[in-house]
């Protein structure tokens, strides 16, 4: 479906067999009022594993990954991230948010701070890093996402693709163990999608544990260890990208794939 599919090199899997899982979701359920949006979600993500979550709109993809860093709280079941269970305990929450980076569909850069300040903010205030060191680190990551020359500008002066790459750099400056992406390319013009996907592929090559909600099937095919298909708050089917796309088992996935292929 994506123009970039053929350009993407296959990325070697980085899953560490035998290590403790990075994320465990156990029978997680969540309601908004009386509407159930997550039903018994059970998913174990190994360290270094790269998961792509896909599914129709409103199926609960965003809610699932937002539960992982507790931007939303779940009501039933257990979520364990990097060995720490998510509860109402604020200390546990702090620990987890340090280790989990997140990239949003709408970038959510801080418009009143420069690009550099956006990147150094959390290392300075959360990790208590000296300012000079934080700036060096930030410049390092800005170079990796290929926009060091924009460091002194404000987010409003950058293109969407550049902003999203800054958002990725900002999250990486916290040196997280896990990165969450919620449709990072959906708000972008087609010509900017590639630059962001390339950045994410570069990140995948470093062995980062990644959970991406995306409809970029080319990206999923080349990068994901596992694709999880959600519909109406449930995990309907999951497996390797090749198996999922070439040999879908359920009717819901078949329908979804046909719609997505038609759509692009």
């Amino acid at each position, binding site marked *: 479906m994506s123009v970039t599919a053929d350009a993407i090199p296959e990325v070697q899997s980085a899953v560490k067999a035998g290590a403790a899982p990075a994320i465990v979701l156990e029978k997680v359920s969540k309601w908004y009022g009386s509407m159930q949006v997550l039903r018994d979600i059970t998913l174990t993500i190994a360290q270094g594993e790269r998961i792509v979550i896909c599914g129709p709109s409103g199926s609960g993809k965003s809610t699932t990954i937002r539960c992982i860093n507790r*931007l939303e709280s779940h009501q039933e079941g257990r979520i364990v991230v990097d060995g720490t269970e998510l509860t109402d305990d604020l200390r546990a929450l702090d620990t987890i948010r340090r280790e989990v980076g997140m990239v949003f569909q709408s970038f*959510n850069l801080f418009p009143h701070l420069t690009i550099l300040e956006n990147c150094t903010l*959390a290392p300075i205030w959360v990790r208590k890093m000296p300012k000079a060191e934080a700036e060096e680190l930030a410049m390092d990551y800005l170079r990796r996402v290929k926009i060091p020359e924009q460091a002194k500008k404000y987010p409003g002066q950058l293109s969407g693709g550049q902003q999203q790459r800054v958002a990725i750099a*900002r999250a990486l400056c916290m040196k997280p163990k896990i990165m969450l992406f919620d449709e990072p390319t959906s708000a972008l013009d087609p010509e900017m999608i590639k630059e962001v996907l390339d950045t994410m592929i570069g990140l995948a090559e470093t062995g980062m544990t990644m959970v991406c909600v995306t409809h970029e099937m080319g990206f999923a095919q080349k990068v994901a260890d596992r694709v999880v298909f959600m519909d109406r708050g449930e995990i309907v089917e999951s497996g390797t990208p090749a198996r999922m796309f070439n040999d879908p088992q359920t009717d819901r996935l078949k329908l979804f794939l046909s719609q997505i292929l038609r759509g692009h």
Partner: protein
Amino acid sequence: MADIAAEAAVPFAARQRPPAAVVGPAAWARTNLFGSWWSTALTLLIGYLALRFAWGFVSWGLVHAVWSVPHNDAGQPNSAPCRAVIGIGACWAVISDKYRFILFGFYPYDEQWRPLVCIALFLGLYGVSANRRFWRRELGLVWIAVLALIMLLMHGSATLGMTVVTDDRWGGLPLTLILATFGLALAFPLAVMVALGRRSRTMPAVRLLCVVYVELIRGVPLISLLFMSSVMFPLFMPQGVNFDNLLRAQVAIILFAAAYLAEVVRGGLQALPKGQYEAADALGLSYGRKTRLIVLPQALRIVIPPLVNTFIGFFKDTSLVLIIGIYDLLQSGRAAVDDPVWQGFGNEVYILLAAIYFCFCFAMSKYSRGLERGFSRSRVR
């Protein structure tokens, strides 16, 4: 070929200039003032009225005005020359005779250099704070130090060899500046806390308290709050316990201003996209850091215009303290023309008072526009 060469010889910039018919004051007047018969007629009518008024004012205020009056041997002014021109010319003599009372009220005559220095300190404080280069933590300390110094100067201290002047004798412009500056400087942080409290999701009791506070205070006029502070409050206090009248009025102003400012600040908090809060959360920033580094800087920028609007309103509303017998600038002006010699010359005094209030309010308004422009420059969308 020759044509082309001739064309090219005309300087590019010269050819790019628009024809004179669409720019310049003449063109502006043509399109905006004399665009049609109807608007030409209106322009002429309004122009005529404006000229009449301006001429009337010049004639009254300058041509036929009386600038000074003779004094008798006892130093008493004789306002007869002014009375002779009532209705024809202004009597500015009332101001040259009474300006010290208007500016400083009943403050002892020989000590009036002290409130004068206080006015200068206030102006200096505003000037320094207006400069964004000085927006650092130390500025807060400067404020505390300068305000303390102002209090010391106004009140005096026997140990330092200064005459003590209790605050029932304070008055005029310094008193207005004290009420407004202390009022807004203390109301603003309170307002921010109330606005944040009102949005708290984890502390329902705090939220309820903030809602009740805002709604209760907004529901009554400032005048009644001032009355309550000065008349009712002492009734409920045990005998002998007596807070000073000025302090109570000041507290009433702070509480009142804070309720209004809190609603303005809350507007800014609400206008901030949810994604900003989420991004700060996702980075692991604590509530305090998120509020201080991400939320407030953006929310307060959004509300600069309504915030300054409220500031200006309260600067003028401090004049309501006259109903509880405090001699602020307005009340000192009114009292000046209670002097039998000068009775009937209120217009001149009110013009002066209006001019003073205008200077302060216009400066605030102009400054806020500059501030908005400065902020938006760093945030091109």
